[in-house]
């Protein structure tokens, strides 16, 4: 019977030394960052902050030095990520590039692609977005219709990508699309990935505002956009297996259970100086989930470090993580009564509103709850 195993995270004394260094840096750097800004978590966008991390050598931490990386361990990178998120640092500009585009390039890119792009990501000067979803292809990624057709000197692309976060701030997209007609028998065949320079002619980016009115999402339209020959990432026709190879990176990190963490901080502030028993119990229950998830997520970092492919374990971390992220605002609102405005009361109210409004996305982005549970069920041998 298949069982999901989360081995104990390997000890990493060097990561704990690193943690102290990161905390010192963030204490100074984020001194004046307000709770509501910190609440944006990994949606917070600040290219200057990303460049600063790059200058410190804190992007592409695990990549080979030949490509601008720093050859450090996944466990050190884990500590860096969780400290950035725990502090509410604005990491959104580089997040996707560092988390999954860079690792995909490292794994599937040509030497020329790697040399041209990876050092720029590691410097915090080159940002990526994900070109997967389409207007008619959400969870059913294999049904994408955007098409790249080979022609002399390159590829001609037509189609529309949707929900493309931060496209207007990004230099490149990793595009997932069809390079051969859809085959009902082999739905995953005939797809490929491309590294797309978003400044090319034939590419139009239009904002899609979220329910709050913020602009993070975009629609990216390709109209006879001509990609050069060397835009292909990896093997033609291998898009599906390449995309699924990113998932352990995409789904297991601390951002999958810390999206609401700032609200917990503001809750603890609002509960001072004397919290009642009910509030302490509710906080303790949430914290027990976070402590356990953190251990599972660190365990996946250890598996990645050991060269395993923990895609199933990652799906589980993300499914459980979204549950606690969404529980935090529901529970926090119940513990603090509305009252006359005070400065600390206002910070709590703002962060609660922000988190409540963004919570629905936590179990949609990066694989919906239903998709994740389907993946887990397949891992159990049920599908």
């Amino acid at each position: 019977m298949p069982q999901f195993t989360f081995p104990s995270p390997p000890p990493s004394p060097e990561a704990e030394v690193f943690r102290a260094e990161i905390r010192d840096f963030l204490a100074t750097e984020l001194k004046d960052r307000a709770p509501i800004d910190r609440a944006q978590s990994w949606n917070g966008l600040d290219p200057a902050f990303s460049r600063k991390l790059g200058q410190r050598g804190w992007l592409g931490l695990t990549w080979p030095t030949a490509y601008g990386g720093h050859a450090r361990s996944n466990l050190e990178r884990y500590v860096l990520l969780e400290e950035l998120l725990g502090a509410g640092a604005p990491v959104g500009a580089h997040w996707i590039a560092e988390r999954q585009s860079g690792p995909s390039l490292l794994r599937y890119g040509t030497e020329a692609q790697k040399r041209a792009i990876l050092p720029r990501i590691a410097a915090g000067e080159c940002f990526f977005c994900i070109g997967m979803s389409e207007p008619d292809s959400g969870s059913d990624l294999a049904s994408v219709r955007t098409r790249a057709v080979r022609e002399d000197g390159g590829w001609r692309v037509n189609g529309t990508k949707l929900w493309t976060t931060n496209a207007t701030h990004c230099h490149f997209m990793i595009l997932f699309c069809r390079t051969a007609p859809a085959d009902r028998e082999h739905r995953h065949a005939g797809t490929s990935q491309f590294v797309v320079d978003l400044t090319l002619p034939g590419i139009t980016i239009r904002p899609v505002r979220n329910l709050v009115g913020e602009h993070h999402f975009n629609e990216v339209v390709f109209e006879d956009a001509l990609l050069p020959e060397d835009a292909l990432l990896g093997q033609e026709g291998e898009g599906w297996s390449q995309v699924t190879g990113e998932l352990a990176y995409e789904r297991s990190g601390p951002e999958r259970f810390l999206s609401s963490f700032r609200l917990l901080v503001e809750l603890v502030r609002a509960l001072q100086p004397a919290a009642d028993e009910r509030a302490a119990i509710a906080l303790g229950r949430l914290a027990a989930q976070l402590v356990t998830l953190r251990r599972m997520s660190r365990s996946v970092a250890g598996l990645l470090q050991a060269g395993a492919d923990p895609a199933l374990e990652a799906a589980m971390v993300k499914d459980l993580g979204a549950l606690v992220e969404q529980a935090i605002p529901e529970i926090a609102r119940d513990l603090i009564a509305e009252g006359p405005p005070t400065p600390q009361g206002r910070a709590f109210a703002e962060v609660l509103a922000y988190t409540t409004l963004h919570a629905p996305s936590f179990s949609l982005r990066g694989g919906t709850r239903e998709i994740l549970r389907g993946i887990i069920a397949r891992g159990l041998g049920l599908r």
Partner: protein
Amino acid sequence: MSCPEDDAGVPLRETADRLLADLLTPQARARIAAGEWPDDLWSALAEAGLPAAILPEAAGGFGVPVADALSLLTVAGRHALPLPLADTMLAGLALARAGLPVPDGPLAVAEGADATLDAAGRATGRAWGVAWGRHARAVVVPAEGPDGPRLVALPRDALAIEPGTGIAGDPRDAVRFEAVAAPSAPAPFGAPALRAAGAATRALMMAGALGAVSAMTTAYAQERRQFGRALGQFQAVQQNLAVLAGQAASAAAAADLAAEAVDAWGPGLMPALAAAKVRTGEAAGQGAAIAHQVHGAIGFTQEHRLHLFTRRLWAWRDEFGREAEWALLLGRHLIAAGPDGLWPAITAA
């Protein structure tokens, strides 16, 4: 349990797994359920060194790290072991750390006790929720002595036992004692820490039992057919089984955390153990509910073995502190840490 390759717990767990699979026949379970003390089974566990694995070598152990020895309890949980291995290990560990001799045979730790020691070293008081108390050679309780807290090993023959039965059908007895001369020593840790270590034993057993429940429920969904297909082919059932697997994996991770915290026995002990008991207790409730739902009516019968596991999950989540008790402790710890100390407190647990 740091890395799988050099994990001293692996051979120990494999031995225990084989032994329990052989010993725990339906006939053996029936004898135990009827109230018999199965001396032959206990002797087999003792001969395999399971109860002593947690002890330091000076006290009769064989030098296994505490966390690895505790991992035996996940195997006990996986087999829904109806014998006091956890309590004997816990009592042995506590007695050894207090410098007291560890008696041979099954031992008990009182889940709750109200006991005092007089100047002559005689114990008076009561204890309740004592797992297998009527069969234990000694019951370990914390007691307040004239010079501070002490750990006492009450000999069973000197105790008045009121037999009771827990939610799983296993003995959970109340005991009374009056001016009982008993070995005691200054407590190496307070009563809350003993309770926390007890909570760790329950967390580990719950993790093991939930792993078994997840596996048997998934297997059942693949065998049982309705509407012309296996239950496991229905998406609604698949999604529930995925949730059950997630609860089982969470419980396992939390239990590992508990075992390591008992091993380290440092300042981080209480928050980590509190988190572990809360999380495994929640997982037990949610996981057992799904297992019963998927099994349907057959899982609600005495004939089916599911209840061996789910009844023990319901018992163990209550013992040594329910979720609310430990959540309160953890929550207060975090509130005391304050908003700026919250993140460091989470990473330290």
